[in-house]
C-alpha cells in the first residue's frame, strides 16, 4: 500500500511540476520579464525539462531494454536536428 501511495505521489508531483513550469514560462513571456535572447534559452530549457519528465516518469524509458529505446529516440532526434539545421540554413 505504501509503495502504491508513493507511486501516485510521484506521478502527481511530476504533473504539478510540469504545470508550474508551463505557468512560469507563460508569465515570463506575457510580461516580458527577461530580455529576448535569454528568455528563448530559458524557455527551451523549460521545455527540455518537461520532455525529460514525460520520458522518465510517464513513459518508463529507463526500463529493461532501455538502451534500444534511447537509441531509437536519440537516432530520431539526431536526424530531426540535422533536418532542422539544414532547413534553416537553406
Amino acid at each position, binding site marked *: 500500500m505504501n509503495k502504491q501511495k508513493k507511486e501516485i505521489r510521484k506521478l502527481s508531483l511530476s504533473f504539478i511540476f*510540469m504545470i508550474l513550469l508551463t505557468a512560469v514560462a507563460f508569465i515570463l513571456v506575457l510580461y516580458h520579464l527577461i530580455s529576448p535572447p535569454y528568455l528563448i534559452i530559458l524557455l527551451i530549457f523549460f521545455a527540455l525539462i518537461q*520532455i525529460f519528465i514525460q520520458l522518465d516518469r510517464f513513459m518508463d524509458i529507463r526500463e529493461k531494454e532501455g538502451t534500444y529505446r534511447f537509441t531509437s529516440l536519440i537516432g530520431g532526434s539526431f536526424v530531426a536536428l540535422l533536418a*532542422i539545421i539544414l532547413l534553416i540554413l537553406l
Partner: protein
Amino acid sequence: METTDPKHLYDTQQAQMNILAFWFLIGAEVVVFGCLFGIYLAVKSFTGDGPGPEELFKLNEIMVSTVILLSSSFTCALAIYFLNLTKKAWTLLFFLITIVLGLGFIGLEIREFTLYVGEGASISTSAFLGAFYMLLGTHGVHVLFGVTWIALLLVQLWLRGINQETAPKLFIASLYWHFIDVVWVMIFTVVYLIGKV
C-alpha cells in the same frame, strides 16, 4: 522506474517486441515532427500580407489547451497505474477522462483555426501560415487518432478485461499519448511562446 504492478502483464515475448517496435515508431515520428518544425522555423518570417505570430496568437487560450493536454497525460499515466494493479473500473475511468480531455483539446484547436481563418489567416495566406497549419494540423490529427485508438481499446478492455493481450496494447497507446504531449510541449514553446517573445 519501479512500479507497484504485477509486471507479468507485459512479460510475453510478443508484448516486449511490440513495445520495442513502438519505440522505433516514436523515433520515426520524431523525424516527421522535426522536419515540420524545421520548415516552420525556416519560413517563420515570411508572413507576406498576412499576420505574423505576434498579432495572430492568443496566448491565454493556448494556455488552456496546454493545461488540458498536460492533464490528459497525467490521467493517462494514472490509467496505466491502475491497469498495472489490474483494476478495470479505475483504468476505464481514467482512460475515459483522457479521451474527454483529448476531445476538448481538439475542440479548442478547431475553434482557434476557425477564428484565424475568419481573420483572413488561412493556410494559403503566407508561407508562415502554411507551415503553421501543417505543423499544428499534423499534431491535431495525431491527437484525433490517439483518441480513436484508445476508445477502441477501451471497448476491448470492457469486453475482455485486463490480461496479457489487452494490457500491452493499452500501455503502447499510453506511450503514444505521452509522445503527443511531448510534441505539444515543443509546439507550445517554439511556436507560441517564442513567437510572442
